[in-house]
């Protein structure tokens, strides 16, 4: 468990360093995630060493959003002003993403089996 925590924090830190170097173009945690994935894929890190820690924190991830979510109280102004825009944009765009991903994937599978 301690080793797992260390590895995840180390990759988080490395990710933050890279993010700093590229002027925050991509968030550090996401770079850390990609680097951890690569390290596992290239067998630099043993998957067993991060298994318990990674499972524990990703299974309960929702809790970590609560404090930031409560920050919503500071943006009630934006919400009341733009609620219609938010709902229209999200609904239509979500349907588009479902449709596009489903169609492209199914067509490519068909194309290959021919």
């Amino acid at each position, binding site marked *: 468990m301690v080793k797992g925590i260390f590895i*995840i*924090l180390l*990759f*988080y830190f490395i*990710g933050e360093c890279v993010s700093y170097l590229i002027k925050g*173009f*991509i*968030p550090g*945690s*996401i770079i*850390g*995630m990609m*680097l*951890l*994935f690569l390290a*596992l894929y290239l067998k630099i890190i043993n*998957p067993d060493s991060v298994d318990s*820690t*990674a499972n524990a*924190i*990703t299974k309960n*991830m*929702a*809790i*970590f*959003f*609560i*404090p*930031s*979510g*409560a*920050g*919503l*109280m500071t943006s009630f102004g*934006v*919400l009341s002003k*733009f609620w*219609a*825009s*938010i709902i229209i*944009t*999200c*609904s*239509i*765009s*979500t*349907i*588009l*993403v*479902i*449709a*596009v*991903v*489903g*169609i*492209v*994937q*199914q067509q*490519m*599978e068909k194309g290959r089996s021919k």
Partner: protein
Amino acid sequence: MKLLIESPEFILVLIFGSYLFGQWVFKKTRVAILHPLIISIAIIILFLNITKMDYETFQRGGQFVSFLLGPSVVALGYILYQQMSYLKGNVVSILTSIFVGSVTGIVSVILLAKITGADDALVMTLEPKSVTTAIAMNISAQSGGIPSLTAVIVLFCGIFGGIIGPFVLRILGIKSSIAKGLAMGASAHSVGTVKAMEMGVIEGAISGLAIGLMGVMTALLIPFIHQIIS
């Protein structure tokens, strides 16, 4: 009394306690909108309003919980690694579908938001809407959006996508298990994955994979699409 309520210890008890309560309500009712996260956030906002505590004071305890968001995103790298086996033989089609889906999501959000009168900050807030909350909040913060609003928007899209997804897939005649799982995960992240699991084992696993891929793809694409469009 005020001192005790404002202590990080009490705030942490409040955060975990309200979430446990939310989980209990959600299990009892099974109503999608009564998501534990929504209940918990509502309780806390109500509490802060009643006690007149400002958000900065709350964050003295909240920051410890917020910090864990970063490491949990890093840990997703391991989850993605575990799901690698489902990629085999479908690498090209899956990556292409996610790429097209991610571009569609970002561009449609920018256009729709601008048409409906959103300002720049709101566009940035909306852009990562199809991505799992932790990654979406990071992207939103990085590009100048409002992370807390992004979190709520992501949750809304997840619930909406989870409900409407199966209908859209049926209307379009999507029968491939991989396509169904991919579409649910890419549009409605973990909420979509729960629905995908009801469709089947492959759908569920592929949906989980789609969450990670969509997160990475969108994080990488947003800066570029910004430069092209603006």
